[in-house]
C-alpha cells in the first residue's frame, strides 16, 4: 500500500468538501472514500488505487441506521454493515431476498466490516482489472483483455466495450425491490432508482460503474414497502460454495395470486456489468401458473440476447437452471 493521508471528517459536509477538491482538480483517483475498506484496501494493496488522501466516513454519525417506517419502507444507511443488514429482524421478516443476499456475501469477517454503500460501489473482480500490469479499459487503457482472453467469469449480457460483471450481491436484490439511492454532493441531495445508479460500459464513464459524481457520496438506500403478498429469494451460485462471488445470481420477487403469479421481478447478478433486470422474463411470468414449463420459459426469456464470450457460454444454461431453481423454491411451502 502506498502511503496516504487519512482524513477523518466528522460530518458529511466536511467529507463532501474534501471530495469537492477532486472535482475541481480533476483528480478523482487522488482522493478516495473509505468506508468498510474491504474492497478498497485490496485495491490499494494491489496498487490499483493509490490515493493520496483517504476520506474516512466512519467518524460521521448516523450513516449506519437501518429503519423500517410505519408504512413498511426500509431505509438503510450507507455505512450500515452487511452483518447488521443480515441480522436485522425486520429485514429478515419483510425482505427475505435482502437478508439472503446479505448473507451470501463474502465471509462473516467481510460482513462485519463491509458496508452496504461499499457493497454497491465496489469495483469489478475481473482477472484483468485486478492485475496491476493489465492497463485495461477500466483503468484508462485501450483494450478489454477479457474480450479475447480468459473470460470464464465475464459478462454474457450487456457487455462492450468492457465485459466486467458487477460483483455486488445486494444490487440485484435491491433492484428487484425497486430500491432507490440517495446521493449527496456539493449541490445537495438527489434520489434515483438504484437501477439507474449503475451504468453500462457503453453508457457512462468506462472508468466507473455508476453515476456517482466526483463530489458525491451514496448516503442511503430506500426500499419502498413492497406490495402485500410478496415472496422473494436470492439464489447465488458460487463456484466455491463459501466465500466466492457469483457465477450467476438470481434475485426474484413475485406476488402470487391464487395458483398464479400476479407479477414478478427478476434480476440477474454475475452476468452483466450491471444488475441485469429481465423484463422479458417478468412478462413471461406475469399471470402464469407456477409450473415447470413457465419456469423454463422465464429462463429462456431472461437469457434472450445473451452473447457469450469464448469461455463463458456455460453461464447461459447455468442462469436458466438457477432461475428454474429460484422459481421452484418459491413454489414450495
Amino acid at each position, binding site marked *: 500500500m502506498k502511503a496516504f493521508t487519512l482524513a477523518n471528517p466528522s460530518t458529511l459536509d466536511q467529507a463532501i468538501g474534501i471530495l469537492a477538491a477532486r472535482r475541481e482538480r480533476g483528480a478523482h483517483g487522488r482522493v478516495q472514500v473509505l468506508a468498510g475498506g474491504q474492497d478498497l484496501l485490496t485495491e490499494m494493496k494491489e496498487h490499483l488505487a493509490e490515493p493520496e488522501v483517504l476520506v474516512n466516513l466512519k467518524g460521521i454519525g448516523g450513516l449506519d441506521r437501518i429503519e423500517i417506517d410505519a408504512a413498511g419502507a426500509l431505509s438503510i444507511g450507507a455505512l450500515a454493515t452487511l452483518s447488521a443488514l443480515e441480522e436485522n429482524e425486520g429485514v429478515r421478516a419483510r425482505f427475505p431476498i435482502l437478508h439472503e443476499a446479505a448473507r451470501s456475501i463474502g465471509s462473516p469477517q467481510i460482513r462485519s466490516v463491509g458496508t452496504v454503500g461499499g457493497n454497491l460501489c465496489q469495483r469489478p473482480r475481473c482477472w484483468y482489472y485486478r492485475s496491476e500490469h493489465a492497463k485495461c479499459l477500466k483503468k484508462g487503457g485501450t483494450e478489454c483483455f477479457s474480450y479475447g482472453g480468459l473470460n470464464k467469469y465475464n459478462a454474457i449480457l450487456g457487455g462492450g466495450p468492457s465485459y466486467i460483471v458487477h460483483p455486488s450481491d445486494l444490487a440485484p436484490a435491491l433492484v428487484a425491490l425497486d430500491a432507490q439511492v440517495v446521493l449527496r454532493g456539493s449541490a445537495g441531495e438527489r434520489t434515483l432508482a438504484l437501477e439507474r445508479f449503475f451504468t453500462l460500459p457503453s453508457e457512462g464513464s468506462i472508468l466507473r460503474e455508476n453515476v456517482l459524481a466526483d463530489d458525491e457520496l451514496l448516503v442511503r438506500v430506500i426500499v419502498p414497502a413492497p406490495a402485500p403478498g410478496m415472496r422473494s429469494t436470492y439464489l447465488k451460485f458460487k463456484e466455491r460454495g463459501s466465500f466466492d462471488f457469483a457465477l450467476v445470481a438470481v434475485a426474484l420477487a413475485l406476488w402470487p395470486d391464487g395458483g398464479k403469479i400476479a407479477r414478478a421481478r427478476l434480476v440477474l447478478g454475475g452476468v452483466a456489468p450491471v444488475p441485469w433486470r429481465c423484463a422479458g422474463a417478468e412478462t413471461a411470468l406475469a399471470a402464469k401458473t407456477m409450473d415447470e414449463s413457465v419456469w423454463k420459459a422465464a429462463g429462456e426469456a431472461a437469457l434472450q440476447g445473451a452473447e457469450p464470450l469464448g469461455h463463458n457460454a*456455460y453461464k447461459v444454461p*447455468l442462469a436458466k437452471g438457477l432461475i428454474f431453481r429460484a422459481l421452484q423454491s418459491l413454489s414450495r411451502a
Partner: protein
Amino acid sequence: MAARKSRRKEAGDVEAVSELAWPPRGDLAVLNHDLRRVDGPAKISGRARYTHDVRLPGMVYARVLTCPIPRAEVTLDLEPARKIPGVEAVIALAEGGTKWLGQPLAAVAASTPEIAEDGIRAIRVKLEPKPWAVDRAQATAEDAPKVLKDGNLSKENTSGDETEARAALTSADQSVEATYTLPVQHHVCLETHGVVVDYRGGDEATVYCSTQGTFTVPESAARELGLKASQVTTIVEHMGGGFGSKFDLGTEGAAACRLAKALGKPVHLMFSRADEFGAAGNRSGSRQVLHGGASQDGRLVALVGDIEKLGGLQGGSFPGRGPYIYSVEKSFLRVRSVYTNTDVARAMRAPGHPQASFGMESLVDELAYAIGMDPLEFRKKNLKGPVYARQLDAVAREIGWAQHPNKVAPGALKDGMGVGIGFAVSTWGGGGGEGCEVDVRIDRDGGVTASVGTQDLGTGTRTYVAAIVAEELGLPIESVTARIGDSRLGRATPSGGSTTTASLAPAVKDAAYKARTLFAERLSRAMDVPAERLRFSSGRIADERDPKRALSWKQACGELGGDGLSARGTFQPGLSSNGVHGAQAAKVRVDTLTGRVQVLKMAAMQDCGLPLNRMAIRSQIQGGMVQALSYGLLEERVIDSVSGWALNANLEDYKVAHASEIPEMVALIDDEDTRPVIGFSEAAVIPGHGAIANAVYNACGARVRDLPLTPDKVLAALGRVG
C-alpha cells in the same frame, strides 16, 4: 567420568543384544491410541513460534520484487529504492535474461514491512519482453520459442511393447480412448516460504527457516554468509506447511543471507502470497491420452498411453513405469515433459501419483461401464493381492454402495438431481532408512527428553517422538519432552516422500530401548533384581516375578548420578517397512440444471503398518481427502498466455476448498496390516479427486476428463452448453 565410561561399555553391550521390536499391538499403552498432540496447546493458543513470528533486536524486514512476465531482458535501477528513508539495503537477484514468470529480480530490506514494499516499488525495472511459452499450446506450436536450449520437449521414456499393446487393443471386447488433463496446482503453504537470518557479523549465524529439512539449510546458508556449515544453526520450531515445496534455503533464503551479510543485522524475509504463487513451486500439470481395452468378462487387456508432464522449466513428475497400480495384460506408455517459462515444479505430496491416478482411475471406470460391469467389481478383478479388495469393500460399506441403485450405469435423475458414488485406490512407498540420530536423556529429577533435529510439518512428529519414548519407558506421554527443529541436535533426514516416520521412529525406538536397557542395568544393582526381569510400565519399574519389588519412576531416577543417563539411537531395520495401499470412495450430488457438484461424503481406508498415533493418522487421511477434493473441484493456476500475466496468484481467485465444500469424512485405518511403521501420508492425497470425478459420472452421466471439475465442465459434459 567413570559413569560415562561404563555407559559406553553398556551401550556396546546393548547393541550386541539388540532384539528390537515393537510390542504386540494389544500390549501398547501409548502407541496405537488416540494421542493429543504435545504441541497442540502452543499452536491452538497462538504461542507456537513459526519462522514468520521470529522478532529479533534490530531486525529489518525484506521483500522481493518478481518478474511479471514469463521471459524478458531485464535492466534494474536500484538507486531510487536506496534513496527512500528507512530502506537499508537493496540487492539485485537476477539481471539480463529472465526465464520464468515470477522469477525474483531484486530484494529490499527496510526498517518496516511498509517501507520494504515502498522500496521494491521504487526500483525501476526495464523489461524487454522475449518470446515465451507458458502452456502446452504455446510450447508445442510449430514456431514456439525455445524454452530450454534443447527445445521444449524432453526425451521420451517408454515402457512396454507398443506393437503387442496395440494388438491387444484391437482384439479387446471394448475399448475407450480419451484425453485426461490436470492443471498446474499450487502447494499453498499457509506460511509462505521464508527465513529469518540472524547474522550480526562474526563467525556464527542462526537461520530460522520454514523448511521440511532442518539439515538442508546450514550448508547453503553458510555459503552465502561466507561461513562454515558448522557455524550456522538452523531452527525450525514450527512450520506452517510444506507439502513438498520447502527444502533447502531457496532463492528467498539466499537473498536474506546476502542482505544480512551486507547489513550485519537480522533479516526477516518472507515471500508475499503473490511471490509464493510465482516462485515457490507447484504440482506439475499433466495431459494423458489413454487408450484402454477390456474383455467382456472384466479383464484389463490393453493400455496404450501418451503422457505429458508440465513442470515448467523442469520435468514434472509421473510415477514409475507401466500402468498405475492396475494390472494390464499388455501395455505401452510413453512419458515426456513439455517445458514452459514458468516456475519449476516441485515435489508435491505424492509427486506424480495424483495425476496418474486420475487418468487411470477414470479410464478404468469408463471401461467398467463400457462392459456393463460394477466398477467396484471391475477394480477388484484387476488389482493384485487381497489388500485392495478388502479396502475397497470397507469403503464401499461405509459409503453405502450395496444400497446404491446405479451399479452399472448412471442412475435416473430426480428433479434434475443425481446422486453418485465413485472409487479409486492409491499406493506409495513410505519406507525409511538411515540418517536420524536421536538422543534420549533421563535426568535424576525424573525428566525425560528425546532430542533430534527433525522438523514437524504438521504430521505430528513431535508427538510420536515423545510417544515412542513414553511407551518404552512405561510413562505417560506428558512425562516426555520432545525437542526437535534445531540443527544442533542429532541429525535427521528431510521430510519428503512420507519417509520421515519410517526413518525416525526406529531411531527413536532404538534410543529409548537403549536408555531403558541402560537404566535397567543401573537399577538392577540398586534393586537387586536381574536387569532382564525389570518391567517398565505405568510409571513404575518392577520385578516381573515379584511386582512388590518396585520403584516409582521418580524413585528410580533418584538412583541415577547427577548427569543422569543418555543414549543415542539410530535407524534399525525391521522396525519399519515399506509400501502402503489405500482405497477411497466419494458420494456426490449433482444438479444437472446448474452443474453444481456437492460432495456428500468421502470414506478412506489406509494401511500404514503400526499406527503410532491413531488420531493423527486419521487427521492425515482426512487432510489428504480435503486436499484432493480441493484439487478435483477448484484448483488451477491461470496464466494469460498472450500477455504472460499470472491471473489468479492470490487466495481469492486461486480457489482452495473452504468450509461448505467439506463433507462428512470417514478415515479408517486398516488394522489388518500387521507390518511395522510405514509412512503413508502421501497415499491419502492420491485417489480422492478421481473418486469424485467417477462419482459425478455415476450420478448423472457427465464424464469430466479435465480437472478441476467446475460447473462449466459438468454442464458441457451433459451437452447443455451452446
